[in-house]
């Protein structure tokens, strides 16, 4: 039995998860990473993607997050997401709406740097769309 640690998933609007877990997969900016207990203190930004949380009971819950960052300590892990929803509650329409907003923002972006960032974000969202809602 793997060692359990505290995991918290927080969005600005509410605290989604605060539980003992054994394993968390985070979509970090530099690639997915799995966090186990006694992880070295790490701070990382995350990109839009799926966070998969394995509870101490063995049950696996999945959440979709849209950007944010994670604060990992040996004793626990806190994920601050800009917005987060359980996968089951995410619908194709809401995701499409987000994609459309970003698309509109790209058209208005003034600097190239900003544009690149947004385009990257869009690519991630589109990818996510494919993963969550296999057409």
């Amino acid at each position, binding site marked *: 039995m793997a060692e359990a640690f505290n995991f*918290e998933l*927080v*969005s*600005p*609007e*509410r*605290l989604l998860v605060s539980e003992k877990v054994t394993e968390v997969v985070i979509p*970090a*900016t*530099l690639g997915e990473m799995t966090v186990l207990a006694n992880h*070295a*203190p*790490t*701070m*990382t*930004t995350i990109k839009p993607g799926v966070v998969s949380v394995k509870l101490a009971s063995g049950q696996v819950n999945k959440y979709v997050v849209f950007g*944010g*960052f994670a*604060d990992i*300590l040996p004793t626990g892990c*806190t994920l*601050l997401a*800009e*917005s987060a929803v359980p996968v089951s509650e995410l619908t194709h329409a809401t995701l499409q709406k987000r994609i459309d907003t970003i698309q509109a923002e790209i058209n208005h972006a003034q600097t190239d740097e900003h544009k690149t960032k947004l385009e990257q974000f869009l690519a991630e969202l589109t990818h996510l769309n494919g993963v969550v809602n296999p057409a």
Partner: protein
Amino acid sequence: MPSLKDLKNRIASVKATQKITKAMKMVAAAKLRRAQEAAEAARPYAERMTKVLAGLSAANAGNAEAPLLLSGTGKDQVHLLIVATGERGLAGGFNSSIIRLARDHALKLLAQGKMVKIITVGRKGNDILRRTFKDNIVDYVTFREIKQLGFAQADEVAHKVLALYNAGEFDIATLFYARFQSVISQVATASQIIPATFDATQAADASSALYEYEPSEEEILEDLLPKNVAIQIFRALLENNASFYGAQMSAMDNATRNAGDMINKLTLSYNRQRQAQITKELIEIISGAEAL
């Protein structure tokens, strides 16, 4: 002296008013509970964000290349005041106390020869500040149509503020809102959001852990600081919302009580007059009978 009929009408109208204020009080109480819950739900995120940022900024304190949002532009010539008020009135001194604080601040800055720009959030503040600072208001946001205040709204305001900052339009941003202390006490507060400021104690607490940063510390900081602005605004909006309903509730409670007092007074004089009329009629009958 009003006639019996006038008094009767007035009592009826005050009673109707009392019914309305009572209903408004009840609605405000229900909304207050929801607003308070929302404000509490937002707290963990904001607290952790501040802790992380405090640690990061302490580590970056001496860095000359720290992001502008943290170090500031180095000037304090142009000030941006973000004034968050309610969308509606009938909430006692709620709107006016925030506006008074903002106006005093603006006048003080103007007297020092600084430039003042204002963004108003909420219709009430815009209406009133427009009278005095017509030329200083650069933007106006209203959430009239929005039923449930969400992070998206705060983000919208933050976007505007950050766009102005990146364009070099101002040096220091201060946020005005009412902090929710309790149902009967809301304190108008000013807090500086750009450049970011942190408590020294929080920084000491957070920087003790040695972190690995992925990507680099600077990149994370650059990513987080704009988010922090949005969070601060979000938090202020939620507190403001709770304060608004708190203020409205106590204002309506007062109004209901005043209406009750008024009804008592009016009923008393109504009864007195009725009595006087009866006495008068009796005297007339008796003196008429005596004359025969």
